[in-house]
């Protein structure tokens, strides 16, 4: 393959980011609908949101593995040949599609570190998108049963608070609770950790 591996890598990065973003968005939606965290729902309806989650995952897989059919890349002419260095630049055929993405990282595929970086960015993006849509969902669905507020949950924070609040309403409460209780969290944590804890051994008697 007479192609600069960096060109291949930048192509892979954009494709992989879309793949990871859509599938993380889908996974997040399925997880938050099952745990009732309404503040992150794409839509104010549980079933629709869950269905959207599944659709995001399926779309991500189809797009990522189908892209070599219509986007030029290092997968033309013979992905059935295992060796990624012998391929030409272009689109692949249906026959060769399954192996088209199998490109060694030394020829421009993404190695583990690259994947970890792009996956992290994709996960953050999926969360940000969910926060945006969730804010609208909470406003639109404010009167529905799904979003009803339990009297006990007025002071709830973190993801528990997101069960009936938008991220932006929940953040100040979570920050305040953390700020007020962080010292207790630490000392309680040290006290309740078992005798193996290095931190307990080091800080020892002062927290007993």
């Amino acid at each position, binding site marked *: 393959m007479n192609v600069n591996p960096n060109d291949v890598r930048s192509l892979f990065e954009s494709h992989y980011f879309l*793949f*990871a973003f859509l*599938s*993380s968005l889908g*996974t*997040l939606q*399925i*997880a*938050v609908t099952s*745990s*009732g*965290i309404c503040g*992150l729902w794409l839509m104010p309806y549980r079933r629709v949101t869950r269905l959207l989650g599944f659709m995001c995952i399926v779309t991500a*897989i189809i797009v*990522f*593995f189908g892209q070599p059919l219509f986007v030029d890349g290092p997968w033309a002419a013979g992905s059935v040949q*295992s*060796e*990624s260095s012998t391929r030409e630049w272009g689109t692949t055929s249906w026959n060769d*599609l*399954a*192996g088209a*993405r*199998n490109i*060694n*990282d*030394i020829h421009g*595929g*993404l190695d*583990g570190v690259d*994947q970890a970086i792009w*996956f992290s960015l994709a*996960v953050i993006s999926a969360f940000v998108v969910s926060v945006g849509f969730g804010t609208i969902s909470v406003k639109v669905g404010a009167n529905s049963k799904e979003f009803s507020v339990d009297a006990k949950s007025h002071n*709830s*924070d*973190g*993801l*528990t*608070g*997101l069960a009936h609040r938008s*991220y932006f309403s*929940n*953040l100040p409460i*979570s*920050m305040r*609770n*953390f*700020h007020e209780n*962080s010292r207790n*969290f*630490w000392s*309680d*944590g040290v006290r309740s*950790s*078992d005798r*193996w*804890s*290095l*931190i*307990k051994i080091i800080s020892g008697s002062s927290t007993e």
Partner: protein
Amino acid sequence: MNSIDASLLIWLNGLSGSVKIFDDLMRVIASDYLMPLVLSLSMFGLWFSGKTPFQRMTFQLTTLMGISALLISNAVVWLINSLWHRPRPFLDHPDELNLLFYSPTDPSFPANPVAIGFAVATAAWVVNRQFGWWLFAAASLFGFSRVYAGVFYPTDVVAGALVGIAVYGFTTYLRRLLEPLATMMVRLARGFSVG
């Protein structure tokens, strides 16, 4: 032992080439992108899956441990690789294997993808047996596909699985050693409304 290992590999890889759709399926599963993403997403999903505050805390601590085990597995595999460089099977048996994957340049033993898969699956299994079994199946399928494709020996996969499980055990010990750091990280995430 080596000859049984090679014979088993050659027999499994010899099944390729007869049913194209199965070969294609194995190529997709063996890909560097599908299964690693599935395993990473399982941890991401687990973080948000708790239904009660207690369950959420348990799941989130497990997610942290799963991610740590994944990273430590990589380091352990790298360490073993630097101590023993077992050549890839397609180098030892070039005329007997039908390679369905590109030729990796790193050592064969133990199988890194299987090690990280089993580390993550063990983490999931600890908090949810059913979910954990599904992930064990996914990690095993990932390993099988790489053997079928001719890039790992069966013993590489078995060793990878053992490394993954052992590293998860070590990670639980490490967590006890560093407590309450992990709990504090979850509390901090809760302060930013993501935990």
